[in-house]
C-alpha cells in the first residue's frame, strides 16, 4: 500500500473514528483502524461490533493495499506531525508515515484479523438534513438510562411516517420526543431502536458535517451515510446494530389535557430550579404551586440538612391552582434541551405527568412524572 493524503483530512477522520475503539474488548483486532487504499480513496474503518464508522478520504493512491494499526495510537501520532501532506506506506503489516523531514513506523497487526463489515442492503432509505438529525438526537440522547431489564427502552427510538421523523427516548420517569421534517418524503414507514452509544457517535461525527444524510434500514442494522456530491469532502458512514424488541406505545404517555398551563421565562425558571435544587435534599423534590389569580408560579423546596427555599416567578397562567412536585434534575435536563426564551409548562392532577415545551416550537416535547407528595 502506498498513498499520499492531506494531513488535516486524515487527522479529522482518525480523531472521529478512534473513539469507538477505546471500548474494552476481548478481541485485540477491535483496537485497530483498518486503512484500505483503493481507487482514489483511502478508506478508514473502525468498529466495536455494535457501531462501525467508515470514512472515505480523497487521496493519491500509489499502490493499493491495506494495513491495520492501533487507532488511538495513530491518531495521537498524526496530531503531532505539523505538515500539510503525509505519505503512507505499508511494509510487513506496519504503517510507515513519511514527511520531508520525519519518518515514523507504527507496529501493525494482521489486517485479515479485522472484522468483516456486513453489507447493508440499500433498498430502503430516507433522507434528512445532517445538522437537524444530529441536533435532534442530541436533544433526547441523554434521557435513557442503561438498563438490562428493559433493553427496548435503553435505546433511542426513531420512527418515520408521513414525511416526519420522530426521535423518542425515555427512562420510564420522563420521555422526550423530537419531530423533524424529512428532506424527502419517504414512501414507507420505518421504525427502529438504536443503542444510545451509537446515537452519540452519530451526533459527534455528523454535527460537523452539512448537507443531507441517507438512512438505510435493514432488519438488524441501520446505516447513516453522508451523500456528498463534492468528492473533496470525505464520505462518512456509520452503521449500528439495532435493539431487538418493540418500543412501548409511547403516544399513550403524552397527556391530552391539563389542569393548569403556564408560560414562564426560561432563564429565570432554570436559575430558580437550580437554587431550589440546592435545598431539596436527597429526594431532589421541588414543589411547584401555580397561583392563577396572582399570575405567579411559586417554587418551594426544603430538607432537614439544608433548610428552606421559596421563590415566586411571574408567569402567564391558564387553568386552575395546583401543587405538583418534580425532581429538579429531571426538570433541568428537559429545560437544557429547550432553546426558546420562554417555556410552556402543563401540569395535571393526581400524580399525572407534567409537560415542558418550547414556546413557538412544536417540534420538541418533554414529559416527566412528578414526585408523589
Amino acid at each position: 500500500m502506498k498513498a499520499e493524503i492531506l494531513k488535516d483530512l486524515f487527522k479529522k477522520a482518525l480523531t472521529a473514528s478512534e473513539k469507538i475503539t477505546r471500548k474494552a474488548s476481548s478481541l485485540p483486532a477491535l483496537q485497530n483502524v483498518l486503512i484500505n487504499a483503493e481507487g482514489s480513496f483511502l478508506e478508514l474503518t473502525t468498529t466495536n461490533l455494535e457501531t462501525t464508522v467508515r470514512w472515505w478520504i480523497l487521496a493519491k493512491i500509489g499502490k493499493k493495499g491495506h494495513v491495520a494499526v492501533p487507532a488511538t495510537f495513530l491518531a495521537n501520532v498524526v496530531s503531532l506531525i505539523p505538515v500539510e501532506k503525509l505519505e503512507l506506506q505499508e511494509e510487513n503489516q506496519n504503517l510507515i508515515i513519511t514527511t520531508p523531514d520525519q519518518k515514523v513506523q507504527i507496529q501493525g497487526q494482521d489486517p485479515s484479523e479485522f472484522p468483516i463489515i456486513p453489507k447493508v442492503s440499500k433498498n430502503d432509505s430516507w433522507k434528512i438534513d445532517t445538522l437537524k438529525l444530529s441536533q435532534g438526537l442530541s436533544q433526547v440522547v441523554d434521557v435513557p438510562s442503561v438498563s438490562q431489564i428493559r433493553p427496548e427502552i435503553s435505546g433511542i427510538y426513531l420512527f418515520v411516517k408521513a414525511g416526519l421523523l420522530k426521535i423518542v427516548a425515555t427512562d420510564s420517569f420522563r420521555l422526550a420526543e423530537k419531530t423533524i421534517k424529512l428532506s424527502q418524503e419517504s414512501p414507507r414507514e420505518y421504525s427502529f431502536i438504536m443503542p444510545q452509544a451509537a446515537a452519540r457517535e452519530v451526533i459527534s461525527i455528523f454535527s460537523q458535517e452539512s448537507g443531507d444524510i441517507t438512512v438505510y434500514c435493514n432488519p438488524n442494522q441501520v446505516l447513516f451515510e453522508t451523500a456528498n456530491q463534492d468528492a473533496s469532502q470525505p464520505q462518512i458512514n456509520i452503521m449500528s446494530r439495532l435493539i431487538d424488541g418493540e418500543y412501548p406505545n409511547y403516544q399513550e404517555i403524552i397527556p391530552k389535557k391539563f389542569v393548569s398551563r403556564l408560560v414562564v421565562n426560561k432563564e429565570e425558571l432554570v436559575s430558580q430550579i437550580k437554587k431550589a435544587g440546592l435545598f431539596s435534599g436527597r429526594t431532589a423534590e421541588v414543589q411547584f404551586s401555580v397561583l392563577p389569580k396572582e399570575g405567579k408560579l411559586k417554587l418551594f423546596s426544603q430538607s432537614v440538612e439544608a433548610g428552606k427555599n421559596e421563590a415566586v416567578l411571574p408567569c402567564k397562567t391558564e387553568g386552575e391552582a395546583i401543587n405538583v412536585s418534580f425532581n429538579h434534575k429531571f426538570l433541568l435536563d428537559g429545560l437544557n434541551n429547550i432553546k426558546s426564551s420562554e417555556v410552556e409548562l402543563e401540569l395535571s392532577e393526581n400524580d399525572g405527568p407534567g409537560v415542558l415545551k418550547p414556546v413557538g416550537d412544536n417540534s420538541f416535547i418533554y414529559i416527566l412524572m412528578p414526585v408523589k407528595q
Partner: protein
Amino acid sequence: MPDILAPEQTKEYSNEELWQAVLAQIQFNVSRANFATWFRNTKIISNRNGEILVSVPSSFSQEWLSNKYQSAILKILRELDRGIRLVEFTVGAADETAKKENDSARLAPFVPPAAESQQQFQELNVNQKTNLNNKYTFESFVVGEFNELAHAASWAVAEAPGITYNPLFVYGGVGLGKTHLLQATGNRISGLFPKLRVLYSNSERLVSRIIEAIKNQTISELKNSLNKIDVLIVDDVQFLAGKDKTQEEFFHIFNTLFQNQKQIILSSDRPPNAIPALEDRLRSRFEGGMIADISFPTLESRIAILKAKCEQNEISLAEDILEHIAANIQKNIRDMEGALNRIAVLQKINKTTIDLAGAKKLLHNSLVAPKKATNFKKIIQAVASFYDLNKEDMLLTTRRKEIVKPRQIAMYLLRQELQESFPSIGRRFQGKDHTTAIYAFEKIAKKIEEAPSLATEVTLITQRLSSEA
C-alpha cells in the same frame, strides 16, 4: 422396541451434539478471543436434507463465520455425518434461553432506582398486544367479604374463559379495585391460555376508537379486528351513557363476540340498570351473565389490605397507625394507600419511626379535607353528571320527571353533606320556598329507606363527591 445395542455408525446426532462437536474441534484452531467473540450464542437451528442452518447473534458473526470458517465447519460436520452437504449462517433472534429470561424479566414490574415517591409512566408496563398492565395480579389482590363474589367470579372466568359466566359484569365505587380485578383476570387468562387474544380497554378509549373509525369510515375494519378477540375487557362502561352511535356499534361487537362464545368482562361504577341513557337492548345484554358487586371493605378488610401493601413495598409501620388509617378512610382503598405511602415516604426521608401522634398530624389534612372541599357547585356537578344532565338543567324551574328527581337528590345532599339551612337551599334553586326543600329532603330520606336502588344511587354520588374532592 428401541435397540440400545445399535452400532455406533448409524447413530443420529442431534443438532446440539453436532454443534458441540464442531465447537470442540474448532477451539483448537482459533485464538480464545476470536472463539469467544465469533462463536458465542451460535447454534444449529435446522438440519434438513443435509443442509445445516446455524443461527448467529449478529451480522458481524455471520460475515466472519461464512468467510473464514465455513469450509472448516463443513469438514467437521461431514466427519460426523456424511449426509451433510451445506452449512449456512443466519442472524437469529437472540438466543432462546436469553429471550426467555428477558421475557420473565419483562413480566416483573420495573423497579425504579430513584426515590420510591418518584412516579413512573405506567404505560411502559402495559403489554402492547393486550393493553394489560402486568402489575395487576390476583396475588396482590386482597380478598374480603366485600369483594369475594366479584373475586370468585373473576377467578372462575379466568379458569374457563367464555364458558363460565358471560358476560361478567363487575360494579363498585371508585378506588375499590375494579380495574385491579379486571386486569388481573386478563393477565391470568393470558398466562393460562397464551393463545387467546385478550384485549383490555377502558370505555373512553373504546369510544374514541369507535368515533375515529366512524369519522375515517374504517368502522368495518375496527369491527373485524375486535371480532378476532377472544377475551374483551371493557372498564368503566358507564361512560358509554348517552353515546348512541357508539352504543350501537358496541352492541354489534358485543353480539358477535358473545355468539362466538368469546369472553366479555365489563366494569362500571353502578349496576347496569342504574346507568342512565343506556339503550335497553345493551342493558339487557349486560345483565345477561353474571353481575358481581364490590362494596365497601369492612375495617378488618381495610387493615388486611394495608398490611398486604406494607408487605409488598417493605414498609414497616406500627399496627395502631394502620388501624388509624383504616378507621378514618373508609370508602376508597386508593386514598387509603395514598395515606399509607405518605407516611412511609416521610419515615424514609427522616429515617425515623413515626408514632401514632405523628401519623395523625400528617394525615389530618387529607382526612378532613373531603368534607370541607365539597360545595354547592360540586354537588350539582356530581348529581348532574350521574344522571347525564347539564348543570343548568338542574336549576331550571320545571316539573319534568327526569329533572325533578335529581333536583331532589341534590337538595337532599346539600342538607346532608353541607348542613345548609332549608331556606338557603330553596334560594339556590331559583328562589324556591324552604318547604320545597324540606319536602325534597324528607322524600329522598324516606325513599332511601324503602328502595335499595335509590340508596345505591345516592351512595355512588356521595362516593364520587369524596373521591373528586
